[in-house]
């Protein structure tokens, strides 16, 4: 599986995701600077977490207009899997590659802790390594993770099975939403399920030393689906 991680000034989870991808696939991803305008042939593109451009204007706003994003959008439109984690999810909504917006957390606080999510759909290269409704413990670290979209769009996401992950309490009940996201949404797919944006950090849950390994199945699932 040949993958690339896009690096923006202010990205800070680019190395974490690179380690997670290399462990799962045996191949180090290419690290691609945001000023580049072309991409090599790839099986997977990742927009990492962090604070691209210091979150100036809005989280992900400037990054979404950086030179490399034209090439990224072009590949995504051709069906190349594209994963945006945390700030990467914000870049995806700002690029209109995913619908909706990520607003300030309802409690106005930056939240950095382990949370629980339920796998809402296994029908994608990203989530096929999990079981339907599987409960995962994964860290979040964000100030703007409050997912919002028009009611009609939320209905559409749910109706077409495009919700990937939902926040849940540790006992599996619905009462675990840390940031006020509409309908407990923690991650969504585009219409073809080849683009995934999620606020939790699966790349920070791939080693027992991280405190958990519930992120491993995402990367091993990607390798199983995309290895040539």
């Amino acid at each position: 599986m040949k993958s690339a991680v896009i690096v923006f000034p202010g990205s800070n989870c680019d190395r974490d995701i690179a380690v997670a991808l290399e462990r799962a696939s045996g191949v180090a991803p290419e690290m691609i600077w945001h000023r580049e305008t072309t991409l090599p042939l790839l099986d997977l593109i990742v927009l990492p977490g962090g604070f691209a451009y210091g979150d100036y204007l809005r989280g992900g706003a400037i990054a979404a207009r950086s030179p490399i994003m034209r090439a990224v959008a072009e590949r995504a439109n051709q069906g190349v899997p594209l994963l945006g984690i945390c700030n990467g999810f914000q870049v995806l909504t700002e690029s209109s590659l995913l619908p909706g917006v990520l607003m300030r957390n309802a409690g106005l606080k930056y939240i950095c802790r382990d949370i629980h999510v339920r796998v809402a759909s296994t029908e994608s290269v990203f989530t096929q390594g999990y079981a339907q409704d599987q409960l995962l413990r994964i860290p979040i670290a964000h100030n703007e993770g409050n997912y919002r979209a028009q009611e009609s769009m939320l209905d559409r996401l749910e109706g077409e099975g495009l919700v990937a992950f939902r926040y849940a309490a540790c006992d599996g009940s619905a009462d675990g939403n840390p940031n006020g996201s509409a309908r407990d949404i923690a991650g969504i797919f585009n219409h073809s399920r080849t683009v995934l944006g999620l606020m939790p950090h699966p790349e920070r849950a791939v080693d027992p030393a991280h405190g958990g390994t519930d992120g491993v199945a995402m990367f091993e699932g990607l390798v199983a689906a995309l290895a040539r």
Partner: protein
Amino acid sequence: MKAKVHVTLKAGVLDPQGKAIGNALAALGFKGVGDVRQGKFIELEIDETDPDAARAQIEKMCVQLLANTVIENYDIELDR
């Protein structure tokens, strides 16, 4: 030409920061403050001197970058 752009949240979009500001004003003893909404103010210097062309150009800037039109409105003011 100088232009001023106000970016504000659309009506109905939850504004927890505005709410926190309202609560702080109440805590300071200011009475009679209703809904508080927070926005952004952006000042631009542009070369264009024709007001209609300037407005059209800034309109494009707002749609493409300055505002996220999913949740935000924008208002353009030209200083002549």
